[in-house]
Every structure is written in structure tokens, then in C-alpha cells.
């Protein structure tokens, strides 16, 4: 884990992540950032400490009389010995689709997060120097950079950086020179291209 990231989720987002209140799409994108950012990982740990304290203070609810017996039987039958399960990449539980061309210099692959409320998750790969079309958001667009970098009016976003955009923001990102930029994106409601040409091309760009 590095501390290279300079753009982070808001505290509210990290609190929601720790509490388990984010939808699956946003949770995945936030987890990709947290796995790459020691500062946010620590912040999440602080919130989890609060959750743990509340758990200790909770009023216990009685269990069925055979609950412990059942649990002991389950761990007795358990074929997975303690310690066998290891931390996995949050992406491991999802299928990644093939890279598909979606526009000049830009490829996209699907991430098999079940689509709910018009939210979808995908990865984008854009060649160095690519100017992505000027766009506005219909809902939110949360992005975590995995490789390479892009730039827009709010700064430069490199590996691990997190970009939280909503419908109040307009974006005109440019991919930085060097290596292709690969991001994971949770997008709600799609985007709206701002230029006349963009609007003509919109049906072709399957974002």
C-alpha cells in the first residue's frame, strides 16, 4: 500500500463504506481506492472502531437454545481450516468482460456487478494523450485510477486517486502522456456529451 494518492473519497463516503451503506457498485470502487491508500485505510479503521464499540454496547438478543451447538458442529464439519482463507483482491469475485472499442483510443470492459438503479461498473482504458469528450453527469460517476493518469480542471489523477463527480460537475478529462490510463468506474444514469459533435456521436459511444 502506498500513500501516493492525492485525491480521496469524502469522509462521508468513507464512513458509508465502513458502515456498509454504499451500494455494491460504489463500494467496489471505494474499496479499490482504500486498498491503495494508507490514509483512507486508517480512516476506515477509525470508523470500524466506532462500529466495534457500538457492537460491544449493543443490547444482546437471546439466541436459540441450540445455537452454540450448531456453530460448533459447523466448525467441526468445516473443511476450511482457520487461516486458510486469505485477503483477496476486491475484484476477484467479479467477472471482467473483454476489452471493447468504444471510441477513438478508448476501450471498455464490463465488471459483473449486478446492475441496479441504473448503476453500472466498468473499466476504461484510454491511450496516452486521448481527450475524452466534454461531458456532464446525469447521476454520479465515481472513478478510481488503477494505472496511468488523467487530468481535468480539478487536477491530475494518478494511480490510486479517487474522483467523485456528480450531476453538478462538467468534465473534460485528458489522458496524461506515458502509459495508457486504466480506471474502474461506477456510473449512474450515464453521461451527457456537451459538444454538438459529441451529441451526434453519443449513440455510438456506449458509455
Amino acid at each position, binding site marked *: 500500500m502506498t500513500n501516493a494518492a492525492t485525491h480521496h473519497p469524502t469522509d462521508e463516503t468513507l464512513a458509508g463504506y465502513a458502515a456498509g451503506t454504499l451500494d455494491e457498485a460504489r463500494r467496489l470502487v471505494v474499496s479499490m481506492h482504500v486498498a491503495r491508500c494508507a490514509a483512507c485505510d486508517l480512516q476506515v479503521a477509525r470508523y*470500524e*472502531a466506532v462500529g466495534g464499540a457500538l457492537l460491544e454496547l449493543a443490547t444482546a438478543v437471546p439466541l436459540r437454545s441450540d445455537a452454540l451447538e450448531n456453530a460448533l458442529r459447523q466448525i467441526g464439519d468445516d473443511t476450511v481450516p482457520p487461516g486458510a482463507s486469505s485477503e483477496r483482491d476486491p475484484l476477484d469475485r467479479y467477472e471482467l468482460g473483454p476489452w471493447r472499442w468504444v471510441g477513438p483510443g478508448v476501450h471498455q470492459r464490463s465488471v459483473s456487478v449486478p446492475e441496479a438503479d441504473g448503476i453500472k461498473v466498468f473499466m476504461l482504458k484510454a491511450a496516452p494523450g486521448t481527450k475524452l469528450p466534454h461531458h456532464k453527469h446525469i447521476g454520479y460517476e465515481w472513478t478510481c485510477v488503477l494505472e496511468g493518469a488523467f487530468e481535468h480542471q480539478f487536477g491530475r489523477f494518478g494511480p490510486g486517486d479517487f474522483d467523485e463527480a456528480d450531476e453538478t460537475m462538467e468534465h473534460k478529462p485528458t489522458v496524461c502522456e506515458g502509459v495508457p490510463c486504466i480506471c474502474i468506474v461506477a456510473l449512474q444514469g450515464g453521461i451527457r456529451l456537451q459538444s454538438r459533435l459529441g451529441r451526434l456521436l453519443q449513440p455510438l459511444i456506449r458509455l
Partner: protein
Amino acid sequence: MNVYCTAMVEFDPARLITRIAATQDRGAFAELFMHYAPRLKAMMMRRGANTDRAEDLAQETLLRIWRKAAQFDPGRASASAWVYSIARNVSVDLMRRETRAAAWLKEQGEPEEEDLDEPELHLLVAEREGLVRATIATLPHEQLRVIRLSFFDGLAHSEIADLLEIPLGTVKSRIRLALQRLRDRLGELK
């Protein structure tokens, strides 16, 4: 002297988890189970599971604790924070999260407030984890309430605003103030 407080001092969950990892100690598991499963059941019920389902989810959480015991790092997190994070994952993995109407929670009512601010608690539980608990117990009621609705009951900030019929900004500022206070009192929360 409060019996519950005395029990809390003797109960050392971090050691129990370490013992599970080292020797697959079923006695240690049973002790953890008896302490956490009833509290986890409460948490799952607050998160919208019915009694039976909540108990299954509490069982699943303990089973994951058994399997993941070797991953627990007492230097990074307290036992209760680690158990909480596993329970949170169980609830997001296995409960289909439906946006619960404020009406649903109103019907449930709020759990009875325990008398948290006991001097014995401050004296007895000097270890860090106890300090978090003791400090939480000193939060003003309205801050403790939003913190609990958020981290224990798993409500989004907007849902808390609906439930309490207060502006979203008020929810956010109460949570911020509570966390600020915890940080002021505790330095690094671990």
C-alpha cells in the same frame, strides 16, 4: 459494581481470536460466540433481518471469524472493530439491501438506551478498546443516536434524516462532531 463491566474486563476477545488462529481452540470459539453472537443478532435485526435470519447471519459471522482468525492483526485493529468489519461484510454480502422506509424503523422503535455513562466503566476498562466505548458513552444523546443509526443499524445519512425528520446537513454535522470528539479524546482510534 456492575456485573457487566466486571465481565467485560476479564473478557479478552483479541486473545481468543489469536488462540483460534494458533491452535484452532474450540473453547475460545465458544467464548467468542457466546459474547458476540447475541450482539450480532441484534445488529442484523436492526439492519432489517427477521429473528431467524438475523441468527443465521450472526452464525455466518462467527464462522467467518473462525476461518479468518489468522488474518486478525491486534496491532492494526481492536477485536471488536475486526468483528464489526466482518459482520458488516456479512450484512452487505448476504442481505439484499432494500432502502428501508423511515416508517419501518419507526415501527421498530429504538433500542432501549443503556445507562452508559457509568464511572466504573471509565475506571475499569483502561485498555484502548474500553476507552473508545467509554468515550462513546459520553457523547451527547443526539450524536450517539445518529452514530448508532449509521454504524450499527446501517442507515445511509439520507435515511437517518428521513427517520429523525431533521435536515441532511444536521445528520452530517452530528456525525462529524461525534467523530471529532472521539478523535480529540482518543488520538488515534485503533
